[in-house]
């Protein structure tokens, strides 16, 4: 019987990321060492070593392969994935979501913005963010 799985990626390399709380206790976490992704991103060895030594401190299995292919092979009942910002990662996650049931888990917020607003200049953002940026957990409820 298939089980849930956490798929970490390089923007969420910590044990305290909310994805670990979102998944049921004891859910296994994996990180796919995806050569094609790294080549596409044109990473130098410095960056790869930094990622690898960070992974070595985490409770995660590092699996070498294509990300989508590896996930399909493992066939989880539900895949928990931290939300990403890099468009390359977002595109990869979108391709996974088409094939496997997945739940995207956002990182803890920095500030509380009352409503979704589009910003073009920093101070448009800061005028809204300043109210909670100086509060613990970026929230008046903390």
């Amino acid at each position, binding site marked *: 019987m298939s089980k849930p799985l956490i798929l970490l990626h390089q923007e969420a390399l910590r044990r*305290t990321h909310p994805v670990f709380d979102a998944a049921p206790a004891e859910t296994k976490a994996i990180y796919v060492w995806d050569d094609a992704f790294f080549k596409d991103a044109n990473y130098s*060895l410095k960056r790869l070593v930094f990622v690898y030594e960070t992974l070595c*401190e985490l409770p995660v299995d590092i*699996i070498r392969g294509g990300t989508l292919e*590896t996930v399909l092979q493992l066939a989880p009942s539900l895949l928990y994935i931290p939300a990403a910002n890099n468009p390359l990662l977002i595109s990869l996650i979108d391709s996974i979501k088409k094939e496997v049931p997945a739940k995207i888990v956002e990182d803890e917020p*920095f500030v509380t913005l009352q409503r979704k607003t589009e910003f*073009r200049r*920093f101070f448009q953002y800061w005028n809204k*963010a300043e109210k909670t940026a100086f509060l613990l957990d970026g929230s008046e409820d903390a």
Partner: protein
Amino acid sequence: MTSTLQTCFDDRDSLIAYVKKLAPWADGAASQIQGGRLKAEMRLAAINPIKYGGSRNFGDGHVTRLSPYIHHGVLSLNEVRNHALSQCSQPVQITKFIQELAWRDFWQLVLRAHPHWAWADVEPYKTGFSAQDYADALPADIAEGKTGVACLDAFINELIETGYIHNHARMYLASYVVHYRRVKWQAGARWFLQHLLDGDIASNNLSWQWVASTFSNKPYIFNLENVERYFGKLVDTSPALNQPLHATYETLQLGLFPNLGMTL
């Protein structure tokens, strides 16, 4: 069948050799800056968010060097902010520090709303030139740190060797690439992403666009006097070895943006 990779090593050299075997195509050597939560926590414990405010623009200022850990999610922005708050008696003491964290949050929100801005000009250049006037590729002398401009070569060598340079140095290099050498910001952004341990498409690429003026109201330029002020103790700022930068802003502006005159 999937098989898992090794995660226990006798020492860092063994780990580096293992990663080299995994990625023989990857350029360069490992950085002295180490990944991992333990290193991140040590660095977080050492920050001084109050002194940061007055010294952050200086090469030897109280910058935190947390960005590689923040980019990889080893530390969250929230966690860093909460720690900084515990280091001050009044939040106003750490306004600049909080704002720098906020810049990262801002860039992420912008890119999420407009993913195509990662590589497309958000706005036209405001330099008197159009995008077609800029070269597509990064010249080899820049990529190799052999521009002949001593301070810039020092910054480039540090970038290549460590994967980290001060934010002010990043702005100098971006300005040099785009405005002094008239190369598209995309070529420079790609180069930074290859090397920077904190290389984040949102912060990196949108900052390049800010310098280029495709996501700001005017191009960012600098001169040798500015480098001398902020990095004079750290890099060679002698006029003889930094000729292209040794000029007043008025002279530079006329030379770099001849179609604009003095309208900046």
